[in-house]
């Protein structure tokens, strides 16, 4: 559905050049969801803008639905929908007026556009607000209308640029639900997000982007295994007990035990799963070492991300403290 090879995009301004894309490669198969994950300024939005024909790449080559993004932009536009940070709805029109307008600009007939608008308003739970101007909508409603607008032309490929940034948790869940419905219907989706949880939740595969290139790609599980498997984490109650705890944990597991004196947190990789955890709990209890917390932890995408972008190594005990 999408292939991109060596995309380069350079923004020039008075203060110099920024290489927003620096040889980015990407492929998305039809009917799948790719999550483009990265920090602010990594090049996620630029990637979407190039693929959605809003920006010409300075180098490289990309096709969307078999059409070239530079030479066949207009053909691409009739099979894509774009929603997110940079494509918006008109806040001085009503929800229905927006949808009818975008439908007609997708070259539906007036009657078809109206029918489609009603259908989308229903699906996106906006029917009650259909005749109010968008100005009066909540943030969540606005995002849903934005997504509905992108769908008014029944696109085969949907670009969602940070679809839930700034939404409260409930609106985010509602947004995820409607996105999942589209995916179930077979829409191919390119999703950018800063939320690792979101990529994990919605995407079949994840591409981690940093400094304008893809630095890792795989399923959420594959990426997680890159940073290692499960770990047992123990927070002991007394600092004095740390040494003894390390000794006990060392006997029960086979990995190197990392110690954070400051937070009294001990972390050790393990392959034994819950079985091993029970063993550790039992032994610590027998040694009368009081613990505040213990658990089996799978690496999150946060760990993956931090490891891949090289920031994890910089985390000092002080940083850890700030985070906890």
């Amino acid at each position, binding site marked *: 559905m999408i292939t991109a090879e060596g995309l380069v995009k350079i923004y020039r301004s008075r203060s110099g050049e920024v290489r927003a894309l620096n040889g980015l490669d990407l492929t998305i198969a*039809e*009917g799948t969801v790719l999550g483009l994950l990265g920090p602010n300024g990594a090049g996620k939005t630029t990637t979407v803008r190039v693929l*959605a*024909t*809003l*920006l*010409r790449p300075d180098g490289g080559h990309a096709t969307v639905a078999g059409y070239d993004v530079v030479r066949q932009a*207009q*053909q691409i*536009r*009739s*099979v*894509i929908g*774009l929603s997110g*940070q*940079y*494509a*918006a*709805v*008109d*806040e*001085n*029109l009503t929800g229905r*007026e927006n949808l009818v*307008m*975008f439908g*007609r*600009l*997708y*070259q539906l007939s007036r009657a078809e556009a109206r029918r489609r608008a009603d259908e989308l308003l229903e699906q996106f739970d906006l029917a009650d607000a259909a005749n109010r*101007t968008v100005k009066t909508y909540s943030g969540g409603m606005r995002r849903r209308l934005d997504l509905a*607008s992108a769908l008014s*032309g*029944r696109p*085969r490929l949907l670009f969602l640029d940070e679809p839930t940034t700034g939404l409260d948790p409930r609106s985010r869940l509602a947004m995820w639900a409607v996105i999942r419905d589209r995916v179930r*219907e*077979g*829409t*191919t989706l390119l999703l950018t997000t800063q939320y690792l949880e979101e990529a994990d939740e919605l995407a079949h595969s994840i591409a981690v982007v940093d400094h304008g290139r893809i630095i890792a790609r795989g399923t959420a599980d594959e990426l997680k295994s890159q940073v290692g498997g499960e770990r047992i984490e123990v927070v002991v109650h007394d600092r004095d007990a740390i040494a003894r705890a390390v000794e006990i944990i060392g006997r029960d597991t086979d990995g190197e035990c990392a110690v954070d004196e400051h937070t009294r947190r001990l972390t050790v990789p393990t392959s034994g799963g819950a079985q091993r955890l029970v063993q550790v709990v039992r032994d610590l209890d027998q040694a009368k070492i009081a613990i505040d917390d213990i658990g089996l932890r799978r690496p999150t995408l946060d760990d993956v991300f931090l490891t891949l972008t090289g920031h994890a190594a910089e985390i000092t005990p002080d940083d850890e403290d700030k985070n906890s």
Partner: protein
Amino acid sequence: MTATKLQAPAATGGLRNAISDGLIVTERNLKRIPRIPELAIFAILQSVMFVLLFAFVFGGAIPLPGGGSYREFLLPGIFAQTIAFAAATTAIGITDDINKGILDRFRSLPMARSAVLSGRTLSDVIYNGGILVVLMLSGLAVGWRVHSSVLEFLAGVGLLLLFSFAMSWVGVWLGLSVPTVEVAQQVSFTTIFPLTFLSNIFVPPQTLPSWLQPVAEWNPASVLTSAVRELWGNPNPYVGNGFPAGQPVLLTLIWVVILLAVFAPLAVRRYRSMSR
């Protein structure tokens, strides 16, 4: 998805699409006007304020060479001044659409590329036509009258609207060239106000220093004002017998062509370069 038939890419190069998409955008822009009534209200108030200031405060001190009512002299100029501000209206509209992300949405749709700009300029002409009607009614209230035929009256209105269309394209270019609505506003006000004051709109050009007179004579706002005064039989004191004095209607049309020939291509080029 596998079985779904590929939606045939709509033919979007044709003139028919350019027109129908342009009209959809026009419709959208017009719908917005009553939703933000403050814009139109203040545009009208600004012009009404000029009418009141000059008709009642300064007008008494401005004698017209050759006689005639100052208010009848003033009103066509006020119309021309208001129309010149079409550039500001358009610039602000375009910049707002860019910053709100609407323009990006339009650019991602399989619509005629020209529709965003043509729809904007067309809706601004209609909007300015509406403002003109309100101003004419206020003009009638302070004693302005048309002394010519219906046809000549309509010709005057037509010239004003044509000029508004040309100024709108200046506004498109400006709107695409500045970063924010505030800058669009500042730039258009600081250029259009001097344009309309270095003119025959408020004072007869004879009262200006002689080196300024040619500027005021050839100034598009003056030329438009002269043309409309002539067509409507309102007082229009000339300086000398030059081309601007003799052929204000023709010269207005020439200005319209010049503005369009310069700014429409510039605007289109700016629009295209948004994808750079």
